[in-house]
């Protein structure tokens, strides 16, 4: 390692180690951070206390307004350290509601930039149907925003992004991921439980990272940027995403992906390299 490299490494500030509030701060321009519905508002989950669970005052989502490269922005940061980043009624409504207000901004000519910091296992078990309903509303809001503005998602890890929020991530026009993140719809434990250990052994960490880890997700084209765990690098990638030319959403590339799926032999349990050949930018499509 050269002296310059060593210095760069020493100066690097881990994004993953930051809590949601600090992550939002790191994405926004210096000193522009202003939190909405902060912990002092004590807008907590009405559903957890009756089930004997202490409700956190921000319900695990930070809504932060500020600027990104001088433009108005909103950052929605999920706190992975609270209930596994799961979404309940309040946390889900914070994200959906903020995206709906972003849409209203665009309709009145204010080009607010939305960023989602996704660190979530999906629906919160204890708020089941209300989490699911909120996620449907988040999906609706993202779809409605897409013609107006880039919607930028970041999956930093260590929890990653799963469940219904993996669909929200997939709807984002630009998705940034780190090597430390895992990204999929059904987590390995859920698959093992639903389909059996012969389908997938959740303890086989190497296999799982090779299939749904950040690097593979980038190499197979399911994420747009692979970034180091460095707060500055992630903030830079977010800024770049808002000025990058818009490419057709992956969710609109239906024929391409149907061909990819058709070319897979599901019985053969394709490995990481085969999947890169099928889905990756270097693939046949």
């Amino acid at each position, binding site marked *: 390692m050269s002296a310059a490299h060593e210095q760069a490494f020493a100066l690097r500030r881990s994004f993953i180690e930051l809590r949601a509030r600090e992550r939002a701060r790191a994405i926004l321009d210096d000193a*522009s951070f202003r939190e909405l*519905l902060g912990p002092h508002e004590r*807008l907590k989950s*009405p*559903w957890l206390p*009756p*089930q004997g669970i202490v409700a956190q005052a921000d319900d695990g989502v930070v*809504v932060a*307004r500020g*600027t990104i490269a001088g433009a*108005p922005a909103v950052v929605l940061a999920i706190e992975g350290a609270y209930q596994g980043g799961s979404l309940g*009624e*309040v946390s*889900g*409504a*914070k994200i959906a*509601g903020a995206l709906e207000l972003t849409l209203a901004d665009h309709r009145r000519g204010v080009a607010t930039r939305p960023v989602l910091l996704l660190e979530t296992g999906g*629906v919160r*078990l*204890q*708020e*089941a*149907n*209300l*989490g*699911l*309903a909120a996620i*449907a*509303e988040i*999906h*609706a809001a993202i*779809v*409605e925003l897409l013609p107006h503005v880039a919607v930028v998602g970041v999956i930093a890890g260590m929890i990653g992004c799963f469940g*219904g929020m993996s*669909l929200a991530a*997939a709807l984002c026009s630009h998705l940034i991921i780190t090597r430390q993140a895992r990204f999929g*719809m*059904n987590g390995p434990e*859920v*698959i093992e*439980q*639903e*389909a059996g250990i012969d*389908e997938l052994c959740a303890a086989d960490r190497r296999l799982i990272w090779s*299939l749904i880890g950040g690097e593979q997700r980038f190499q*197979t084209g399911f994420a747009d940027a692979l970034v180091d765990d460095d707060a500055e690098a992630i903030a830079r990638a977010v800024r770049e995403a808002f000025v990058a030319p818009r490419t057709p*959403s*992956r*969710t*609109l590339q*239906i*024929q391409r*992906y*149907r061909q*990819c*799926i058709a070319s897979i*032999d599901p*019985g053969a*349990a*394709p490995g990481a390299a085969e999947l890169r050949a099928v889905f990756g930018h270097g693939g046949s499509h």
Partner: protein
Amino acid sequence: MVASRGRSWIEALASPARVVCFDAQPSVVFANGSLGGSNALFVSVVPDPSSRFARARNGEVGVQEGWAVAQLVRDTIAADRDGSRRSIIAVVDVPGQAYGRVEESAGIHLACAAAVHACADARLAGHPVIALLVGNAMSGAFLAFGYQANRIIALNDPQVLVQAMGRQSAARITRRSIAEVDALGESALPMSYRIDTFARFGLLHALIEGVDADAPSAADVDRVRKMVATASDEVRASGRKDLGHRLESAAARTMRHASIEVRRRLAEQWQDP
């Protein structure tokens, strides 16, 4: 072809139009029929016991189903671009998304997101989208197929179910018995496995009583078809394309009070930076 609630209801509702599979995808079936005098697309995801994807043989939404639904709905949007927008009737009977290794590595999240995007775009393009729940509407499968509808209508039947996690999984994860999981839903309403409890959140447009969900009579089918047609007409007349009405009912004002309060306070504090 195997019998399923989804299949029998789509065939009954679309009749006399014939239900066929979409683009050689046996698990995604559709018919272009009529509803209350105007054209409608009926679509359902149904079991395909011979699917190449072993984890998607029982009506689950897997990679093939997500992309096929997206294509069918996009084709419909494109065909109607310059004319009257067909109603889109999603007949929902989905036990879940496909849980499998190959599904994850091949991007089931993206396939399901593509279906979400297409259904939401159909709604935004002015197609009345109605989800009719005749069986399971589980978790990510329901997000992908049905939850973006302008209106959700359900049959009041013990096997009609909206939930984020199946009973058995919930029992395993929370180390409870099935009976305990059901009992929990009596007090923790969002965890309930009863459609009439779900109806209390204001997310359903209508809960249809007294219909035999497994073997509907001609009168049952006629009644359900009329309710779907009326809902579709209402959407068309309202001109409303978003999901905001889900928070406007008396039921939502009581049971999703926090969802409304969060939005109210966010709007108060929003202001330009």
